[in-house]
């Protein structure tokens, strides 16, 4: 059920008054929004081929639905240009996949935020940032697409902080959490190429990101040096679960690893093997759960890299979302844990602006 049918709100012909009106209605993330004037919403809708009543996502617990029109209104409010809209739509279609569990991942105390990773030519076409200050401010496309996701969660799905969004601490990505995969100087196939979409298609991958851990290593000059640093972050006692991982490797680190001939899958396998804690170690911090160990070490269903007596992060190397991103200088990669103690949200991807295998 749509929360409310679309209607026009009239305010005095004054931009600041309109912004204040949006605040008064509770339609913001705490920052001013762009008042969604009708003509801007209509311009946004030009970038979606389906009727504006089309439902792109529905909330499994409340039944609230997000239509193309509602998404467009919130994209305008977030400051998106119309050409960004297909990314917003594709992201919500990915979040709408049951395995993403967007109710749990957006309502839980865990405080995760949907991280969007855009891969392919569209990132460059739109002018997205995949390089210096990747997760920081300064790029309208990254900032406003990520913000549109949050405004839709608040305004359409009523994920209200403190009421239906019970994040214990939240995380800064809940304002906006959207990056592009770096193509320039990337020695590996792009994420979208591994996702088996047709040539020329770009994709957005959504990942319920539970925070951000910087991995600094300026002295390491072998793949093992660099990757052991990242694996240690992935396996820290505060983060380790059976959940998935997002790893964004800085170009400086990638040069060390790829320069030694390591492929993306080599890196994922190495990280999976190294990102573990022992059973005794898990017990020492009160986080050991037998059923999690059994799930990872199940007879006949155990990844060959899983070792007895160890709890690895994730179930297989493919539980690691690995992309290149960041500026040319600096030995700073990052690890982002997925939401939840278990595997309650799994990353999903969708092609942007095209319909593949649709009815």
């Amino acid at each position, binding site marked *: 059920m749509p929360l409310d049918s679309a209607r026009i709100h009239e305010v005095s012909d004054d931009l600041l008054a309109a912004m204040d009106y949006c605040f008064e209605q509770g339609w913001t993330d705490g920052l001013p929004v762009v008042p969604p004037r009708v003509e801007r919403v209509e311009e946004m809708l030009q970038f979606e081929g389906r009727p504006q009543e089309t439902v792109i996502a529905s909330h499994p*617990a*409340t039944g609230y639905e997000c239509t193309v029109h509602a998404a467009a209104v919130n994209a305008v409010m977030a400051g998106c240009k119309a050409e960004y809209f297909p990314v917003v739509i594709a992201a919500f279609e990915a979040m709408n996949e049951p395995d993403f569990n967007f109710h749990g991942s957006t309502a839980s105390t865990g405080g995760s935020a949907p991280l969007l990773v855009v891969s392919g030519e569209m990132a460059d076409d739109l002018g997205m940032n995949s390089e210096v200050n990747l997760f920081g401010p300064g790029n309208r496309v990254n900032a406003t697409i990520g913000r549109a996701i949050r405004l839709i969660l608040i305004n359409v799905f009523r994920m209200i902080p403190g009421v*239906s969004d019970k994040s214990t601490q939240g995380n800064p990505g809940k304002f906006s959490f959207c990056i592009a995969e770096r193509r320039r100087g990337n020695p590996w196939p792009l994420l979208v190429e591994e996702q088996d979409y047709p040539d020329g298609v770009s994709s957005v991958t959504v990942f319920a990101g539970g925070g951000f851990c910087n991995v600094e290593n300026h002295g390491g000059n072998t793949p093992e040096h660099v990757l052991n640093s990242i694996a240690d972050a992935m396996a820290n006692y505060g983060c380790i679960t059976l959940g998935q991982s997002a790893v964004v490797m800085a170009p400086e680190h990638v040069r060390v690893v790829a320069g030694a001939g390591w492929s993306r899958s080599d890196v994922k396998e190495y990280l999976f093997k190294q990102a573990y804690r022992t059973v005794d170690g898990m017990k020492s911090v009160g986080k050991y759960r037998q059923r999690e160990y059994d799930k990872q070490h199940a007879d006949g269903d155990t990844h060959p890299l899983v070792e007895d007596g160890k709890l690895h992060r994730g179930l297989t190397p493919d539980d690691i979302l690995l992309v290149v991103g960041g500026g040319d200088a600096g030995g700073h990669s990052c690890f982002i844990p997925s939401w939840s103690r278990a595997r309650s949200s799994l990353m999903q991807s969708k092609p942007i602006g095209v319909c593949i295998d649709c009815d």
Partner: protein
Amino acid sequence: MHDGISFEQLGKRAVVLCTEPFKVTAQNIARMMGLPDYPFVMVEHPIGSRSLPEIKVLAESAYEQALGILHD
């Protein structure tokens, strides 16, 4: 809360248990589902880090509250 009310709507009695910090959230879901006064059991928070004897005390209290709701 959603599951509890769904059971009731299917004709099956149910009791929802909720720890204190989630009271507002539970009330919000109950209101949204058209039963703003739907009663539920309140339990002290947290649960996960308590010892078994402590849990037993909480469970006994929750059981008494649940009986009261079911007998209404």
